[in-house]
């Protein structure tokens, strides 16, 4: 028997065995991954006229089980935009947070990675410290940030009992305390706290990736730059950044994807009312919008999820296109 025949025979013998090994995975995948892809698209186009409400409502599974008949239509997508301005609020908040946090955290992570790469003494210590936020619970530490920025303010008619540690530091430097997260706080104060928290949370992963990239950079390039008499600043922009560009592109793309799915950071700081006390939903995000209607209007939730998917897809494509032009592989 030739070698080829042998492998063919072995192949056919192993066929059923391989599928047997794959069975548990395939069943679970079919039920919880493949079916949802089709079904979510399907129900996003299902809606019906509800005479009690006098409006077109999206698919609801318990109504469907009780015999409600749904028709094909794009009303769910229209409803997402037209019922109140909550989706536009969520879209605006999400975009603002993404546009602010991705550049800040990427730049900061790049600086930290470069700094870490050029020291020896205490390097391991700093690396560990900068990785700490990664292994924490986003909700739990969000509550710590809320406590740091928050005030103890039992009676709104009177000044707060305690303005909190961050405000105390601000006052120590001669500033005036700011209502960051409490009842009646301004939108920009809320956004500032969220940006600080999200950047704090996003740094470890970015530093890890960028530092890994830096450690693989050939020292020759720096020697060449030194021979040419290039300044540090010039070396950074002309040597380090281009050589790191694949890693930078990677952290920017994952940063954008994560930014558009931002949800738990806001829950951590403001609770699931998604806003300071007395203004629920003020800081809602797109993912939050989806979960708001998941209970009673799965059609609308699906439509919003598809819109989110489309936005993430388009932004990722733009990122890929830009990085194809700028990245030096």
């Amino acid at each position, binding site marked *: 028997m030739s070698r080829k025949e042998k492998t063919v025979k072995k192949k056919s013998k192993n*066929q059923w065995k391989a599928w047997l090994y794959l069975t548990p995975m395939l069943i*679970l995948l079919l039920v*919880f991954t493949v*079916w*949802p892809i089709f079904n*979510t698209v399907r129900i996003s186009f299902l809606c019906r006229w509800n005479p009690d409400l006098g409006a077109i409502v999206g698919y609801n599974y318990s109504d469907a089980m009780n015999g409600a008949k749904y028709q094909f239509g794009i009303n769910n997508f229209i409803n997402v935009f037209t019922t109140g301005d909550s989706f536009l609020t969520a879209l605006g908040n999400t975009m603002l947070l993404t546009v602010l946090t991705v550049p800040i955290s990427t730049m900061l992570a790049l600086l930290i990675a470069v700094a870490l790469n050029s020291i020896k003494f205490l390097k391991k210590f700093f690396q560990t410290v900068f990785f700490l936020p990664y292994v924490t*619970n986003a909700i739990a530490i969000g509550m710590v940030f809320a406590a740091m920025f928050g005030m103890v303010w039992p009676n709104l008619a009177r000044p707060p009992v305690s303005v909190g540690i961050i405000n105390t530091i601000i006052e120590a430097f001669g500033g005036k305390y700011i209502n960051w997260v409490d009842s009646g706080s301004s939108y920009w104060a809320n956004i500032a706290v969220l940006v600080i928290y999200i950047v704090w949370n996003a740094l470890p992963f970015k530093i890890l990736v960028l530092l890994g990239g830096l450690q693989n950079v050939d020292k020759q390039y720096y020697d060449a730059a030194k021979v040419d008499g290039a300044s540090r600043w010039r070396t950074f922009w002309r040597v380090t950044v281009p050589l790191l560009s694949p890693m930078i592109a990677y952290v920017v793309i994952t940063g954008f994807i994560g930014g558009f799915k931002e949800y738990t950071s806001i829950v951590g700081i403001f609770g699931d009312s998604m806003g300071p006390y007395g203004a629920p939903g003020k800081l809602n995000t797109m993912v939050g919008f989806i979960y708001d209607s998941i209970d009673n209007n799965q059609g609308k939730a699906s439509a919003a999820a598809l819109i989110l998917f489309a936005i993430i897809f388009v932004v990722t494509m733009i990122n890929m296109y830009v990085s194809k032009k700028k990245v030096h592989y």
Partner: protein
Amino acid sequence: MKDNRKSYVGLRLTAGILLGTAGACAVVVGMLGFGLFALGTWLSLILVCIGVLALALAVWSLLLLAKIEDKLFATGATGEISRRERAQKTLVKAVLYLFLSVLALAMIFPFYWMLISSVKTVEEYNLATPTLWPHEFRWSTYLAAFTGSLNLGRLFLNTVIVGVVSTLLSLVVTVLSAYAFARLEFKGKNMLFAALLATMMIPGELFTITNYITVSRFGWLHTFTVLIVPFLVSVFYIYLLRQNFMQIPNELYLAAKVDGASDLKYLWKVMIPLASPTLISITILKMMGSWNSYIWPRLVANDDLHRLVTVGLRGADFRDTLTQLPDFPLQMAAVVLVTVPLLLVFILFRKYIMRGVSRSGIKG
């Protein structure tokens, strides 16, 4: 001569950095001390003075000493360049360490604040000027976190049950499919694997909506099953383990075959021990995933018997029953109890966590 110079430069650098850091700290504490933190004006003033002095000393040791040193060691024309270069280098180093120290402080501060707030009394926490170090340690807050309405013990138990069972089942499913993809031959293998990888690009929210309907129809709401089963398959873990399995030489497999070992025996005796680092990575990431999961558990199992720890933590009402004031120390104690296991796991298994993380970009 050269060694001598090196140790001298090192000494000067270390002294400069230490002095600089201490000085900066003293200045900050001193300035904060004015009217705050109850340090007293005179003490604050003295601290600021000491700080400024230390800073000046640091600058002196870093810059001026560079000149003296160059006079001592540099010779002739090259001395001019190397002196400037070295002074610049020292300055850059100092700036780097200052930059890293300030940011590292910002990274650690939330953990510090969480820890010291958890042991303060409510009265001390609510003082008009917060104390940086508690006057009085009240450890009983931690006991209250377990016994009070938060019922942290039950939350821990639920989370551990879900974490352990889902990790074990997930490992079985992952090992079997990774083995099939790495070692066995079957029609459409590459296509199936590519399709699996493609599902990783779709945001989870798309699945959640239909999965919510599915588990409601199955009657799984408010059970442990609903927290375990839908997330048993992780394409990323299968990918990770398959890569690891593929590195194991095929000769071992053939040798095992000659010895008459079955596929399963080979998998159990050879593959799994060899791939144990990856398996440990998967175990840790999966356990941390259960510990940190919030969105799905809140949606499908937010009842007293099945609530997971993160959901319970966020949903709890940390208000003093008498005064209706928020009880921040109690809240922080609960946060500490949720955070410490994670930090312990990180310290013990740092290597394994970093391995998984650098390749995924996803949390948990």
